[in-house]
């Protein structure tokens, strides 16, 4: 295993870093989280800038307008984006990381032509209509129904956790087209968000106002040609995006976590208690040292996976391992930050230079990580059944 970067990698990194040094400050401050139109303009504007600079769709194949970067380049991309404090993918997330990749794998030529270039240029925002109130960990239990009526599906039901629902242009929607089969009765549709019968209600979270909505669908008529993949084959279609998962999904966040630990050291140096700095508290220092080792080893897992994959071309099941380790670790780091703040943690905004926003508010955000996209409990089941061959549990009658 060689973890050094090749000369070509260094060239890539240098060019990206140079570009970011100019592009990031030029973006200005991100708008208020309450100003939805401004946020859309900000996020899609950044996507357009990436596109113009040749960095949009970093892991999309070149034939579909992506960068077609190597795995190592992709890793460098996330590292540099995080180090430069560049704007995140924001509301382009579903289109660039999820809907787009699904179309690349399973869409018709027409579907690809309609959406892929617009997603990459920041002209289309997508949202996700997967989860339902009674279909969370057990996603395949979804009940939103789609009934054929001529050349349309008539869709009725309720979705939850639809992020950016009220500013999105399209929704990747999972519907039930056959109620006699659980996994084999699901279809994957592209739903234009301007159709009649779609109601979006904001869903406040523990974080206060949020990016999430509930979506109510009443007799929404979606053309059959908007289906991706065969009817009732939607569960498989849903899983193809996993092919795009190359172990790099958490790379940017892990780099951020490394930076957070350095900030924690700085904060400890600046905090005094009982006439000594918190940095003098060896118990705290040791805890930071321990967490740093964990972050470094998770980062090493990502690099190892990328280096193996580059060699063998076969993606493993490592995604669940990294997800489980990283999300639990993330919560512990920001919980420690919150503890270190002492009573400044009673605020979620910075107070007197104490970084409550970056620690407390961030801690609250991390709480969803061990639930969303397969809870830690689900990940442990996946790991033990698929990687270690443990038998499934007996089913309920």
């Amino acid at each position, binding site marked *: 295993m060689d973890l050094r970067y090749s000369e070509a990698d260094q060239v890539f990194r240098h060019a990206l870093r140079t570009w970011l040094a100019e592009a990031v400050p030029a973006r200005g401050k991100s708008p208020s989280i309450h100003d939805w139109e401004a946020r859309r303009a900000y996020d899609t504007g950044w996507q357009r800038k990436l596109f113009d600079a040749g960095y949009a769709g970093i892991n999309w194949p070149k034939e579909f307008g992506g960068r077609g970067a190597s795995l190592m380049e992709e890793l460098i991309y996330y590292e540099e984006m995080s180090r430069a404090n560049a704007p995140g993918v924001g509301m382009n997330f579903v289109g660039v990381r999820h809907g787009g990749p699904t179309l690349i794998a399973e869409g018709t030529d027409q579907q690809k032509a309609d959406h892929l270039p617009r997603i990459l240029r920041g002209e289309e925002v997508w949202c996700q209509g997967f989860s339902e109130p009674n279909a969370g960990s057990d996603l395949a239990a979804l009940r939103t129904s789609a009934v054929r009526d001529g050349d349309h599906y008539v869709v009725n039901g309720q979705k939850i956790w639809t992020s950016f629902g009220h500013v999105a242009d399209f929704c990747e929607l999972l519907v039930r087209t056959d109620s006699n089969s659980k996994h084999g009765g699901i279809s994957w549709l592209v739903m234009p968000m301007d159709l009649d019968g779609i109601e979006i209600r904001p869903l406040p979270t523990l974080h206060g106002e949020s990016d999430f909505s509930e979506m109510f669908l009443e007799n929404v008529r979606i053309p059959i040609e908007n289906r991706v993949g065969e009817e009732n084959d939607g569960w498989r279609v849903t899983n193809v995006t996993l092919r795009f998962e190359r172990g790099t999904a958490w790379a940017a966040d892990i780099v951020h976590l490394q930076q957070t630990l350095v900030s924690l050291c700085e904060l400890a140096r600046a905090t005094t208690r009982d006439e000594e700095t918190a940095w003098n508290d060896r118990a705290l220092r040791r805890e930071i040292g321990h967490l740093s080792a964990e972050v470094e080893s998770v980062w090493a897992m990502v690099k190892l996976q990328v280096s193996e994959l580059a060699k063998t071309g076969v993606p493993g099941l490592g995604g669940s391992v990294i997800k489980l380790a990283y999300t639990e670790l993330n919560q512990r780091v920001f919980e420690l930050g919150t503890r270190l703040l002492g009573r400044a943690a009673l605020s979620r905004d910075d*107070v007197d230079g104490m970084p409550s926003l970056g620690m407390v508010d961030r801690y609250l955000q991390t709480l969803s990580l061990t639930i969303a996209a397969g809870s830690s409990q689900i990940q442990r089941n996946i790991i033990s059944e698929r990687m270690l061959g443990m038998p499934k549990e007996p089913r309920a009658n």
Partner: protein
Amino acid sequence: MPFEAVVEQAVKPFDGALWRDLAELGVLSLRTRENDGGLGLGMAEAVLVFAELGRRLLPGPLIWSALIAGLLPEVGKGGLVVTGLDQTRPASGPLMIEHWEGSNTLIVLDVEGVRRIETDALQARAVETPLDPLTPVHQIHALPPGERLADSATCQRLWSEGALLTAAQQLGIAVATLEYATSYALEREQFDRPIGSFQAIKHMLADMLVRKEQAMAAVYAAAATMDGRGVDDPQRMISTAKLIAGEAAHKNARGCLQIYGGMGYVWEMPPHFYLKRAFVLENGFGTMDEHADRIADRLGASATR
């Protein structure tokens, strides 16, 4: 208070009516001597009441009132509303005061003793987004001397009582979050069965119950000891209670949130209110780390005997 009321309360400022109700019930004068019109209860009874207040997430400067009502009986009647600041172990960082709005008087505990400062004499800035929506926080920048209320011995006693009443509220959080998690695990179905039939959930709940029971025992034992009805070192028992109940509050709230799954992330659901309150209580009257250090110091002292 049903849970819907908690959510509503979250957007309100100080609730004078609720406060008068609590005063009438005697909650604020538990520790006031009967001669002075209070209930004159011991800590053993006070912790039961405060566990219940914690379980229901009641807002307001409850602990400071209960502590000071012994010195200023007017507080027990709800006429004088006090909040406080623990400066017995000064640390850098902002001076954060809970429930400033509605309070007339600020009580300060420090190594010298107990002081009172009229809030009119102070300038305070409201924190816009407090961590706990039910615990509004103000920041003050300077602390005038104020009026001396009691000596350092009284101050130490009040601090110990404050630590234990906080532990009682933390116990209440551990109890409530176990209750909510239990009901939800029975109700919520995934994969065609209640999630409470999965071992992962079962075992989380069992660990939550153990923590709750440990916290309850530690809080009750510390209270009995403070009342002179126990046989142990009261300071060590109080630190034990604050540490164990603090850990139970935090971990049970965290477990409750995880068991609620996506629903745990929804504003109107109970778990996050408890988790946030747990953080507030952790930062009052000594953190877990401080109390662990205190226990080790006392244990180490007994080891040299």
